[in-house]
C-alpha cells in the first residue's frame, strides 16, 4: 500500500476529471475521542486524502489557528506516536483513503528515523510532510521511508525558481505540495490566477500531481483552486471550527465535518482542467 494508495487515489480522481479535496486535521485536537470521530467522518464528508498533523511545541511555519490546534493537541497529551495510533484506528474502517502525516522534524528525530518509519507503516500512513526538512537534509529520512514505501512529500513555494524546483522534486513520489503563498498557514489568501502557472510549472518539473495549500478558506476559493490544481488542501479553516466548538462547549466533529462537506462539494462541483491535462 502506502505510496500505492496515493497513486491509486489520484488515478481514480483523474478518471472522474476532478481535483482531490484534502482536509488537514490535528491529532488529539481537541481530545482523542473527538479527533477520532472527526477522522472517521472525513471520507463520508468528502475527503479524498487526509492530512493528519501531529502536535509540536514550536510550529514555526504555522499561523495562529494551527498553532492553537497544536497547543490543544499537546494539552490532550498528544504527540507523534499517539497521532499515528489514530491513523491505525482509522485504518480499521478505511483502507483506501491515503493518510499524509504532517509536522516538524524534531519529534521524528527523537523517535529515530527507522523506528518512526516502521511505526508509520504499521499505522497505515502513506506519506509524510516535514515542514523543516528541505531536500538538502532529507537523505537519511528518505532512506528510512523508502524501506517501507512511504512517500516524503516535497514542498514547492513561490520562492522556488526553476533551478530550485529541480532539486525539490528530485526522487520524489506521491504528489508535490505547492505552498500557495510566501508566509505561514491561514493568514494570506491564495490567488488562483497566480497559483495556476506555478502549479503547471511544478507539474512539468515533477511529473506528479500537485496539491495546493496555505490560504484557502472558503468554498469559492477552494473551487477556484480546484480548477487549476490536482488537490486542494484546507487546514486553518477546519481547526478554527474545532476552536469555535470548544469555545461554545459543543462537540467538534459535527461542525468540522459540515465544513468539510461544504468545501468538498465546492471542489467536486468543478472540473479540474489540469487533471485531464496531466499525462
Amino acid at each position, binding site marked *: 500500500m502506502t505510496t500505492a494508495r496515493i497513486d491509486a487515489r489520484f488515478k481514480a480522481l483523474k478518471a472522474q476529471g476532478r481535483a482531490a479535496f484534502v482536509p488537514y486535521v490535528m491529532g488529539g485536537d481537541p481530545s482523542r475521542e473527538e479527533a477520532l470521530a472527526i477522522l472517521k467522518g472525513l471520507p463520508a464528508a468528502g475527503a479524498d486524502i487526509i492530512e493528519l498533523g501531529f502536535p509540536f511545541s514550536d510550529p514555526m511555519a504555522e499561523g495562529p489557528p494551527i498553532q492553537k490546534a497544536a497547543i490543544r493537541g499537546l494539552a490532550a497529551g498528544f*504527540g507523534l*506516536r499517539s497521532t499515528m495510533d489514530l491513523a491505525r484506528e482509522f485504518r480499521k474502517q478505511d483502507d483506501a483513503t491515503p493518510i499524509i502525516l504532517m509536522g516538524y522534524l*524534531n519529534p521524528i528525530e527523537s523517535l529515530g528515523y527507522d523506528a518512526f518509519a516502521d511505526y508509520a507503516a504499521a499505522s497505515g500512513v502513506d506519506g509524510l510532510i516535514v515542514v523543516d526538512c528541505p531536500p538538502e537534509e532529507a537523505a537519511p529520512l528518505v532512506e528510512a521511508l523508502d524501506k517501507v514505501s512511504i512517500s516524503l512529500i516535497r514542498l514547492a513555494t513561490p520562492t522556488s525558481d526553476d533551478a530550485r524546483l529541480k532539486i525539490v522534486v528530485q526522487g520524489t513520489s506521491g504528489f508535490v505540495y505547492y505552498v500557495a503563498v510566501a508566509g*505561514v498557514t491561514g493568514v494570506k489568501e491564495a490567488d488562483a490566477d497566480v497559483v495556476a502557472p506555478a502549479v503547471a510549472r511544478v507539474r512539468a518539473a515533477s511529473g506528479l500531481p500537485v496539491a495546493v495549500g496555505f490560504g484557502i478558506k472558503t468554498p469559492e476559493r477552494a473551487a477556484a483552486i480546484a480548477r487549476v490544481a490536482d488537490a486542494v488542501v484546507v487546514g486553518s479553516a477546519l481547526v478554527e471550527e474545532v476552536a469555535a466548538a470548544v469555545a461554545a462547549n459543543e462537540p467538534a466533529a459535527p461542525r468540522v465535518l459540515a465544513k468539510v462537506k461544504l468545501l468538498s462539494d465546492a471542489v467536486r462541483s468543478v472540473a479540474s482542467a489540469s487533471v485531464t491535462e496531466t499525462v
Partner: protein
Amino acid sequence: MPNTYAWPDAQGRFGPYGGQFVAETLMPLIHELDAAYAAAKADPSFQAELDGFLTHYVGRESPLYFAERLTKHFGGANIWLKREDLNHTGAHKINNCMGQILLARRMGKTRIIAETGAGQHGVASATVAARFGLPCTVYMGAVDVERQQPNVFRMRLLGTEVFPVTAGAATLKDAMNEAMRDWVTNVADTYYIIGTAAGPHPYPAMVRDFQSVIGKEIKVQSRAQMGKLPEAVVACIGGGSNAIGAFHPFIEDEGVRLIGVEAAGYGLDTPDHAASLKGGRPGVLHGNRTYLLQDDDGNIVEGHSISAGLDYPGIGPEHAWLHDIGRAEYRSATDAEALEAFQLCSKLEGIIPALEPSHALARTGEVAREVGKGGDVVLLMSGRGDKDIFQVAKHLGVEL
C-alpha cells in the same frame, strides 16, 4: 585534535550538528545569504568598512583588564576581564549586528527583523537599524518584555517596533519562532539579524566570524600584557555567540583551555535550568541540529534562568561539536551562584556585570585555582549589568 580546524563543511555542518533545517520557502533566501556572505567575506572593502565602524562607532578594541582584587580574592591564577561591557550598547551583541547590517545593505534589503531575549541583541539591532535608517521590528517574548522594561524602552527610543510574543512560554525561543514567521512572510525585502551563533547555515559561522573579533583581540592583548597566551578562556553560554567569538581564534592553540558556562537555573537536578549540553540531547530546532532541552516526544522544553539572555533551550551547533570532540569544556552555574558573583564583581572591581557573564564569573574562581598562581585566565565580560539591577534588586528583596 586536528591541527587544522575548518568547520563548518560545505553543507554548513559541524560534525553532525548545524545544517539548514528551514521551511522550503526560506531555502532560496538562505542560499542567497550564504553566497552574499561568502562574497562579502572575500571582499577587503567589506572588512575595511566593518573595521571602521567597529573602531569609531562601537568603540573597539575593548580593554583586557587585569582584575587584581578578584585575583586576590580567588587566590589562583591572574584573572583578566575582556571588557565587552564597554562597547556601545553595553554588550558584545553589537559586533555581530554591525557586521550583519552592513551585509543587509550590500544585499539591498530594506527592512530589519530580529529576536531578543534579555533585550541586548534587540537594542543592538535597533541601534544599527537607526544608524543606517532602516525600519526594524524586534520580536520579544511577552514575559521578557515584562522583565526587561529598560531595554524595551531603549529599543522604542531608537525607533524600533517591539512586538511582544505571547505564544508558548513567551520567551526567547517563541520570539525566534515569530521572527521566522515574519521572515517567511516578507521574503523579498527583509533581512533577519539572528543574535546568536545558531539558526540555519550560514548564521552559526557568520555570527561566529563577526564575534571572533573578541578572541582575536584577546590573543593580541594577551601577548602584549601577559607576554604569552592565557591558560584558559571562560565565557557564559546561552546560544553561545560571545563564547564562540572568544573561543574560535584559540581552537588550534592546544595549551589554551576553553570553558563555557551554561545556566543551571535552580539546579541541573531540577527541571528549571537552561543547560542544553548538560541536560539536553541532540535534536532539530530553529534551523539547526544541536543539543536541545526536550521531552520524550521531542517537544521543546522551556529553559529557565535568572538571566533572560541565557534562557534558551538550545545552543549553537559549533558548541555542540566542540563539546563532543572535547576541545571545549562545559560547566554550569545556578541562579544563586550568578547572583553571588554579580555582587562580588560589583564590590571588588567596581564593575557591575550583566547576569549572563556573572554565570561565567561564578566558575572563574575554581578555574583560576585549577590553573594555579602565575597562570592567566581570561573571563569574557560580555555585557554590563545596568539592565539587570531591577531583577537583582527583586531577588535580594530590595524595593527600588
